[in-house]
């Protein structure tokens, strides 16, 4: 573990998804007045949750915090706070550009164009910061009101430009019906995990938090402040004697990717149904579940296809100890183009050797966090209920539903953007010719295909559209506590 002094400086979102908190609100803020904004930030800092270890009660059980607060800034937000020019220019380019300007890299085209977004797009109010409030049922209302009041108390210095409310399903499933958030990397020095750790899944701290060694054995680029601009010595210095004259604004900070993803659940299941051959409804349901699992790479429970190729096995819901090239090189169990095999190809990257593939995959990892919006179209229990024929014949009810997706990484262009561009939306991923990700790929034409290796000849699922639309998003920097204290004073 990292020393306590560092744990107290890092925002907690990197170490936990706080899955026990059922409710959440995301406040999108704009700073109208620098002085008042700094006063507001001064009041917020003590409330922010860090990676500090959770205390124990008298029975020896951990007591996780009931309300959890995190804060991230856009580049424009840091400009509004009047950070020194050196810090602003030493920021990574994608962060300066902002998510909406990276639409061609991210594949946010067609119905996902930033012009159509609810938040973060060119037609929306400029966002300077994102405040994330997660809380348990009993504390949520009070915390929600308190934060609204703080914004109000800033007397126009800080303005709420947009708000998103979110929740978490008890089952941990996302609207298509699949278990979400399985297969996360274990962060060296930060992850509190009691599960046995799968070798190859432990990733260096520096892949997510700035100021630590990453998978290349070096530090990711950081934002710097000249020493004379930090008279109160609030920021940490550099261990490197070659780099005198600067302090590290980025230390213990991380980059947060936010995307509001609207899921067209009915269209997805209708497209799957159109690809079935079974004559009976019961057979159709089984075939649909099988096809959708082939497209995902895991069964709805989360059980990986590599370990359980023929049927869903809830006992393997959290299983993560498998490799592709070693266990299933041709993709007969888990297709090469399936969602999970794209998002983390492990040892299966064909363009480099086997050992290098694991290393390369680990230099692209992200930590995912998610909450839902919109009521579910059908109960998730229907998958296991023999008498419930859903999702066969599913119809849309017009409700907007999906997930608030968050990704944490240290270098957004090398990690999140790379996954999105070179693995998810690239039809030529890993030896494939024309397959984009069936779930989240930008199949704008509605003619997307997905190849399922099969003997004697491969089966192809066709007519895939864009089932997940981006409805908002942004790139945020979540500074360390010391850096935020510096922001108040700078």
């Amino acid at each position, binding site marked *: 573990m990292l020393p306590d002094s560092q744990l107290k400086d890092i925002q907690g979102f990197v170490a936990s998804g706080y899955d026990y908190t059922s409710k959440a609100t995301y406040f999108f803020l704009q700073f109208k007045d620098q002085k008042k904004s700094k006063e507001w930030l001064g009041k917020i800092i003590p409330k922010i949750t860090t990676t500090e270890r959770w205390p124990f009660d008298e029975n020896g059980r951990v007591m996780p915090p009931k309300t959890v607060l995190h804060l991230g800034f856009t580049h424009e937000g840091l400009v509004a706070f009047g950070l020194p*020019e*050196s810090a602003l*220019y*030493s920021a990574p*380019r994608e962060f*300066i550009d902002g998510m909406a300007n990276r639409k*061609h*890299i991210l594949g946010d085209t067609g119905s996902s164009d930033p012009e159509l977004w609810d938040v973060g797009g060119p037609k929306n109010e400029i966002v300077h910061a994102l405040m994330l409030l997660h809380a348990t049922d009993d504390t949520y209302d009070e915390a929600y009101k308190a934060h609204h009041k703080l914004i109000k108390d800033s007397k126009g210095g800080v303005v709420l430009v947009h708000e998103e409310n979110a929740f978490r399903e008890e089952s941990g499933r996302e609207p298509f019906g699949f278990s979400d958030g399985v297969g996360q990397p274990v962060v060296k020095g930060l992850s509190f995990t009691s599960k046995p750790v799968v070798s190859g899944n432990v990733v260096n701290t520096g892949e997510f938090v700035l100021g630590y060694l990453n998978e*290349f*054995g*070096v*530090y*990711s*680029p*950081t934002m*710097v402040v000249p020493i004379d601009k930090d008279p109160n010595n609030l920021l940490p210095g*550099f*261990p*490197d004697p*070659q*780099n005198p004259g*600067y302090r*590290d604004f980025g230390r213990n900070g991380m980059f947060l990717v936010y995307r509001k993803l609207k899921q067209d659940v009915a269209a997805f299941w209708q497209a799957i149904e159109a*690809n079935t*051959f079974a004559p009976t409804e019961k057979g159709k349901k089984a075939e649909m579940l099988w096809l959708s699992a082939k497209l995902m790479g895991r069964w709805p429970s989360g059980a990986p296809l590599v370990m359980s190729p023929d049927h869903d096995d809830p006992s393997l819901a959290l299983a993560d100890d498998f490799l592709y090239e070693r266990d299933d090189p041709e993709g007969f169990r888990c297709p090469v183009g399936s969602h999970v095999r794209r998002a983390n190809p492990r040892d299966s990257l*064909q*363009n*480099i*050797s086997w050992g*290098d593939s694991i*290393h*390369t995959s680990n*230099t*692209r990892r992200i930590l995912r966090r998610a909450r839902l919006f919109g009521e579910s179209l059908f109960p998730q229990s229907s998958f296991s209920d023999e008498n419930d024929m859903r999702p066969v014949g599913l119809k849309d009810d017009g409700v907007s539903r999906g997930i608030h997706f968050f990704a944490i990484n240290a270098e957004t*262009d*090398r990690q999140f*953007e*790379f996954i999105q*561009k*070179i693995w998810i*939306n*690239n*039809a*030529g991923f*890993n*030896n494939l*010719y024309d397959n984009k990700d069936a779930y989240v790929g930008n199949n704008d034409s509605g003619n997307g295909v997905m190849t399922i290796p*099969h003997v*004697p*000849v*491969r*089966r*192809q699922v*066709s007519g895939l559209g864009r089932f997940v639309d981006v409805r908002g998003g942004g790139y945020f920097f979540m500074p360390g506590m010391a850096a935020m204290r510096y922001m108040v004073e700078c």
Partner: protein
Amino acid sequence: MPKKDNQPKLPLRLIAVSSIAIGAYLINQWVKRASYRIPTQNFQARREMPPPPGHQKILTLVATVKPGQEQALNDVLYSISHNRENNPYMNFSKIKSIHFARWLTIYDELNGHRFVFSCTYNGEFEAVIKEIADATPGLDAIWGKCTEYTGRDNFLDFARGSFQPASYRFFAFPTESPQTIRDKITIRSRLQSIAGNYPNPKDVESFLDSLHRVSHVPFWTAVERITAWLSAQALAGGRYVFNAIGDVMARFFANWGLKPHVATPYSLIGTPEEQKKHVQHLIELDRNETPFQQNQFTLVAEIRPERYLRMRFLMMIGALLTDYGYPPGSLIGVFTIHSLYWVILDGGQRAILCTNYDGNWSSYLGDFARLATLLDALFNNVKGYPPSGLRQVNLFNSWIRGAQLICPLYYSAYPDETVLNIIRDREIAATLGQEMGYDVVERLLELL
């Protein structure tokens, strides 16, 4: 004395390894020269690494841009790039034997602005020059901006005069021509569309069974398979040895002159003005990149004078390994590079590096961990290279992107095909040819 035990090992090994490598290289050269035809009336071409017959070749033309014409030249190139189908200057459909081509300008204080055209092709020097001239109605509008160009009629002479030989070359598939690659794409996509007619695999089973009955494997085919397997094993063994030699050499040269691991890369940060300029350059580079498929990378490096010989020696070793060391599609185990070559200019003062690769440079940078020693060994001889080399991946990235040239016009004969796709297509075509016989393939194509 403990020192003595350690010392003699490395030089001895080095001498042994390098003499084997040099010996092998000389034999290689000797064999090749016998069957190689040098482009006539060109002294410089004699110094080029002669490719084996039937292999891809490299054509690089470098000409001086008339003073004040560089912007006009770039404008013409951009206007072609923005309107590839209907522009008055280039007719890409007439290009048959070129795999990849780039048109760009380079600048240095001594020589001013120069126009560089570089491509990889199959066939003869004269033939490809004629093909380029025929495919370029706007030859005068492009090349007329160069001092040495005296008109369409003299284009061949002009090309001979401005030709610059490549000192090191790698081709993923040296024996393939654009047409053979396109043929394989066609075979594969036709097979795909046949399979597409049977969305339910069950429907196609009886058809495949009938194919199985057609296919006979005669006795000699079985013998052939065994010999093929044995020779593949022998080849793999040979490649292993070559790879090991290459690795030792690259490691030695990468470590010779590079500083050990530097603790932090924070020295990346320049002044805000430098940062702004760098970001502008990156935006310009991105604008010329395609998002997913193939891209080109071009860089002009100034060679440190005292390192010129070392660089040539490395290129020689590299060329030897490239010819014998790697299976098709692979450059030291990296399967994203279609071609890579160095062209030395101005008597060794500078060199152009040209690559054609799959994907996006900055995104793929991390995959080059495997190439690290080789890149370090080569770039180490170049002015401005970060002293820590590729070990500081961010510093390296910043340097290489800063040094990368903006290329207004780029051509690829098969832009959607990755190296991995070509490997697979070759396998499909080879399987069809070998396992089922020509008549079955023909029948199969008739069925479409």
